[in-house]
C-alpha cells in the first residue's frame, strides 16, 4: 500500500512542472490563439540557463535565485521573440504561427548544443531539499514534496492574478473575445506581449525546477511539448484549472501505467486523451469556442483550374524532372526519389488542410501504415512488388477510415490534437508490438524488384506516381466533391442548409488523404529497404505540416512546392553543415515573416499584382504590413 502511495506522490511531483508549462501554453493560446510550438524550447532553455546560473552562484540563495533569474531571463527572450516575430504574423493564416514557432524550436535545439554541448548535464540538488523522507518504509525525495506543494501554490497565485487584478480581467476578457477587448480601447499589442511573457516565464520556471530531478539535455523540448499538448487538450484550452487537473491525471497515468499496463504504458495517456476528446470535445474544463471572425480584408482569390498554357508549363517541368537521371549521379537521383515521395506525402496532407480545412497533426500515421503494409506483404506474405504497392497503402486507408471517423467529429485545434493522439497510438503499437513489427529494430530487407531497383528506374516510378497523385488530387479539388469539401470548410452552417452531409464528406476526404499518404509510405519503404517506427513518428508529421504551410495553405498545389523546397533544403543542409537545424529553422522563420502566404501563395499574389499593373518588388511586404496594422 505504502508503495502505491509513494508512487502516487511521485506522480504528483511530476505534475508540478507539467502544470507550469501547460498553464503557460494554455494562457498564450487563450489570448493570442497561437499554438506555441516553441513552448518546449522555452522550457528547455529555462533548464539550461538555470543549470548555468546555479553552478555559477553558490549557496541556497544562489540556487533559488538562479532558478527565478533563469525563468526571468527566458521570459525576456520570449518578449523579444513576441515583439520581433509573432507580432508580424498574428493575422497570417491560421497555424502559420505554429510554423514560425516550430522554426524557432529547431533553432533553439541547435543553439543549446552549440552553447552547452551535446552531453547530458546533471544539475545541483536543491539546498534544503537534498535528502529523502521515509514514508512507511518507502523513501521519497524531499524535493518531490516541495514540488507537490508548489503545484497548487502556483495554481492559487495564477487564480488570484486572473481574478483579482486588472490585467487578469483583461486577459480573461481577451480569451473570450479579443476583438471586443481591442474595440474597448485596450492596447492589444502590449496585452499580447505581457501574456506571452507570463506564459514563457511559467514554461522556463517549469524547466528550471526540473534540474534537481532530471538531467538537462537537448531533446527535452520535444518530449515535454507532446505531453503538454496532451495536458492542455484534456484540461481544455484556456482553462488553468483544467491544465492542473489534467497535469495530475497525465502524471498519475504515467506513474501507474508502467505498473498496471506495462505493455501499453506509452499509449495510455493518448488513449485517455482520445476518449476525452470524443466524449467531451472541448476538454474536461474547456468551453466550446465561438467561431472565429474572419480577418477583414483577407479575400482569397477563388481557385481556378490551370489554363492550357499553365498545363503546358507543368508538363515541361515534369519532363525536366524526368531528365534528372541523365544529368545527375546516383546520389542526386536517390535524393530525387525521396523528394518525389515527400511530394506525394505533402500533397495528401495539403488536400486535407487546404481544401478540407482540417489540419492533421498526425499524418505520418498513414504514411507509416502504408510503409508497414508493404513490409508485411513483402516479408510475410511474399507478394510481388506491384501487388505490395497496390495493397500496402490499404493499411493507411484502413487506419484513416477508423481514426478519421472520430477525428472529423471535431474541428480546429481539437481535430489536430486528436489526430496527433491517434498517430502516437499507432507509433506505440509499432514500437511495442515487437513480435509483429520488430519494434525498434524495424523490418529490414524490403527491396524493390529488379525492374525498379536501379536508382533511375525507382526515381521514374516515384516521379510517375507523384505526378499521378498530384493530378488526381487536383481533379478532385475541382470536382463536385471538392466543392462540397470546400463548402464545409467555408461555412458548415450553409453547407448543412443546402443538404450536404458535411461529416461524411470530410470523412471521405480524410480517407482519401490517408490512402495517398499510404502510397507515399509504401514507396518510402522500398526506397529505404526498411521500415521503422520513426516512419510514423511526430517529427515526420511535423515535417509534413511544415511542407504544406511553406507551400501555402490557401493554394491548390502549394504542397508540391513546399515539399520540394523543404526536403531539398533539408537534405542539402544536413550534408553541408552540422548546424542544419539552426539554418533550417532560421529559413522557416524568415519565410514566415517575409511571405506569410507561403511560397506559392506569395507568387500568386505577385502575379495578380502584375496583372493589375504595379510591379514594385518591395511593395509586397509593405502591403502585408499595412494590412496587418489596419487589422489591428
Amino acid at each position, binding site marked *: 500500500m505504502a508503495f502505491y502511495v509513494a508512487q502516487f506522490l511521485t506522480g504528483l511531483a511530476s505534475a508540478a512542472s507539467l502544470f507550469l508549462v501547460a498553464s503557460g501554453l494554455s494562457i498564450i493560446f487563450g489570448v493570442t490563439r497561437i499554438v506555441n510550438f516553441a513552448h518546449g524550447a522555452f522550457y528547455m532553455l529555462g533548464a539550461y540557463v538555470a543549470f548555468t546560473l546555479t553552478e555559477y552562484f553558490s549557496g541556497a540563495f544562489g540556487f533559488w535565485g538562479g532558478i527565478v533569474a533563469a525563468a526571468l531571463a527566458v521570459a525576456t527572450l520570449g518578449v523579444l521573440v513576441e515583439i520581433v516575430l509573432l507580432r508580424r504574423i498574428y493575422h497570417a493564416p491560421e497555424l502559420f504561427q505554429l510554423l514560425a514557432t516550430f522554426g524557432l524550436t529547431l533553432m533553439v535545439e541547435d543553439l543549446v548544443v552549440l552553447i552547452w554541448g551535446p552531453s547530458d548535464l546533471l544539475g545541483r540538488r536543491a539546498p534544503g531539499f537534498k535528502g529523502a523522507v521515509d514514508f512507511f518504509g518507502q523513501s521519497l525525495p524531499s524535493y518531490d514534496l516541495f514540488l507537490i506543494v508548489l503545484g497548487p501554490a502556483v495554481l492559487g497565485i495564477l487564480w488570484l492574478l486572473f481574478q483579482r487584478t486588472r490585467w487578469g480581467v483583461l486577459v480573461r476578457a481577451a480569451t473570450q473575445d479579443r476583438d471586443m477587448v481591442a474595440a474597448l480601447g485596450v492596447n492589444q499589442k502590449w496585452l499580447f506581449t505581457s501574456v506571452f511573457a507570463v506564459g514563457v516565464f511559467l514554461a522556463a520556471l517549469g524547466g528550471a525546477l526540473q534540474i534537481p530531478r532530471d538531467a538537462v539535455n537537448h531533446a527535452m523540448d520535444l518530449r515535454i511539448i507532446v505531453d503538454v499538448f496532451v495536458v492542455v487538450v484534456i484540461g481544455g484550452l484556456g482553462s488553468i484549472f483544467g491544465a492542473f487537473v489534467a497535469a495530475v491525471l497525465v502524471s498519475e497515468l504515467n506513474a501507474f501505467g508502467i505498473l498496471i499496463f506495462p505493455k501499453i504504458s506509452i499509449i495510455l495517456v493518448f488513449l485517455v486523451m482520445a476518449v476525452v476528446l470524443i466524449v467531451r470535445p472541448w476538454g474536461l474544463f474547456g468551453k466550446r469556442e465561438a467561431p472565429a471572425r*474572419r480577418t477583414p480584408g483577407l*479575400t*482569397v*482569390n*477563388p*481557385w481556378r*483550374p490551370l489554363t492550357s498554357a499553365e498545363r503546358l508549363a507543368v508538363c515541361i517541368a515534369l519532363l525536366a524532372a524526368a531528365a534528372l537521371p541523365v544529368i545527375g549521379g546516383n546520389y542526386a537521383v536517390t535524393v530525387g526519389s525521396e523528394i518525389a515521395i515527400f511530394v506525394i506525402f505533402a500533397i495528401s496532407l495539403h488536400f486535407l488542410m487546404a481544401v478540407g480545412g482540417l489540419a492533421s497533426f498526425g499524418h505520418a500515421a498513414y504514411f507509416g501504415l502504408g510503409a508497414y503494409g508493404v513490409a508485411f506483404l513483402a516479408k510475410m506474405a511474399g507478394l510481388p512488388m506491384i501487388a505490395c504497392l497496390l495493397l500496402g497503402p490499404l493499411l493507411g486507408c484502413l487506419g484513416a477510415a477508423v481514426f478519421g471517423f472520430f477525428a472529423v467529429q471535431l474541428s480546429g485545434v481539437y481535430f489536430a490534437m486528436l489526430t496527433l493522439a491517434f498517430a502516437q497510438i499507432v507509433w506505440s503499437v509499432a514500437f511495442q508490438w515487437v513480435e509483429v513489427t520488430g519494434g525498434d529494430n524495424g523490418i529490414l530487407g524490403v527491396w524493390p524488384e529488379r525492374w525498379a531497383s536501379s536508382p533511375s528506374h525507382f526515381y521514374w516510378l516515384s516521379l510517375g506516381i507523384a505526378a499521378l497523385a498530384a493530378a488526381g488530387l487536383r*481533379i*478532385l479539388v*475541382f*470536382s*463536385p*466533391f*471538392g*466543392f*462540397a469539401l*470546400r*463548402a464545409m*470548410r*467555408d*461555412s458548415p*452552417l*450553409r*453547407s*448543412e*442548409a*443546402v*443538404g*450536404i*452531409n458535411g461529416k461524411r*464528406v470530410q470523412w*471521405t476526404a480524410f480517407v482519401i488523404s490517408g490512402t495517398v499518404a499510404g502510397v507515399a509510405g509504401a514507396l518510402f519503404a522500398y526506397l529505404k529497404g526498411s521500415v521503422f517506427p520513426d516512419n510514423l513518428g511526430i517529427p515526420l508529421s511535423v515535417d509534413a505540416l511544415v511542407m504544406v504551410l511553406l507551400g501555402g495553405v490557401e493554394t491548390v498545389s502549394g504542397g508540391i512546392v513546399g515539399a520540394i523546397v523543404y526536403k531539398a533544403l533539408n537534405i542539402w543542409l544536413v550534408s553541408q553543415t552540422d548546424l542544419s537545424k539552426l539554418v533550417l529553422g532560421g529559413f522557416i522563420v524568415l519565410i514566415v515573416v517575409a511571405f506569410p502566404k507561403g511560397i506559392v501563395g506569395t507568387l500568386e499574389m505577385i502575379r495578380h499584382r502584375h496583372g493589375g499593373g504595379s510591379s514594385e518588388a518591395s511593395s509586397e511586404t509593405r502591403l502585408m504590413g499595412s494590412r496587418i496594422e489596419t487589422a489591428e
Partner: protein
Amino acid sequence: MSALPPLLSVEGLTKSYGGVHAVRGVSFELAAGEILALIGPNGAGKSTCFDMLNGQNTPDAGRILLRGEDTTGRPPRAIWRLGVGRTFQITATFPTMTVRENVQVALVSHGRRVFNFFTATQNFAREQAGRLLDLVGMGGYADRPCGELAYGDLKRLELAIALANEPKLLLMDEPTAGMAPRERVELMRLTARIAREQSIGVLFTEHDMDVVFEHADRILVLNRGTLIAQGSPAEVRANREVQAIYLGEGLVYDARHREGAGA
C-alpha cells in the same frame, strides 16, 4: 376525401432552456404562395421557433408537418431535401468561391452529385445557376469572388442559393437586417414576386414594421414564447393586445419617421 394538407403545419411547438420557456404551444399553418411574418419583441422566441422549423433545434414537444409529413427533429440537411430553402440573419455563403460557384454547390447537392469525384464542377448546371442569379438580379456578378460582395448583394446571393432546390417553403431569418432602406424594399419585393410566381410559401421574421406590413399576407405575433395574435396586417394592427405589448411606441416612431422621409 380531404384536400391536400397545408404546406406547413405547426402543432403545439414547445421548447424550454432550463427554467425558461422559450416557446410555449405555438401552432399555426402556412399555405403555398402565402407570405407569413413572425414578429415579436427581442426574446419573444422567434429565433428558437425558427431553429426548430429548420432542424437546428429539437422541440421538447409539438410537431412540424410539411405537406403532412412529420419533420420534427430531423437535421437541417434532411429538411432541405424536402424542399425547404433558408436564409440566415447573418449571411452564410462560401467566401472563397465565385458567386456562380456558390449557387453551383447548392445545385450539386440538390442533384445528389456530392460524391462525384471526377467531373469538373465548372460546367455543372451552369445555365441553371445563371438563371437563378438572373432571377435575383445577380447575373452580372457571376464571376466575382463572393468574398468581395457588398452585404446587400450577399443577401441576394443567399436567396439564389436558397432557391436552388426549387423549394416549396422559404424560411428567412430577418432577411433585411443590416441593409439600407431601399435595399430592404427591393429584396422583399423580389422575394414576394418569386413566391407568387412559383407558389412558394414564405415564413420570415423581421424587426422592420414597414417591411412586415407592406409584404406579409398574414402576421403571427409572438410574445414571451406564446402566440398572442395572428391575422392580416390590418387585424394585427388593430389588435389592442399587440399594440400594448409590442407595437405601441414602435408605430408612433415609424409613422413619424415615414412622414419625415416623405417630406
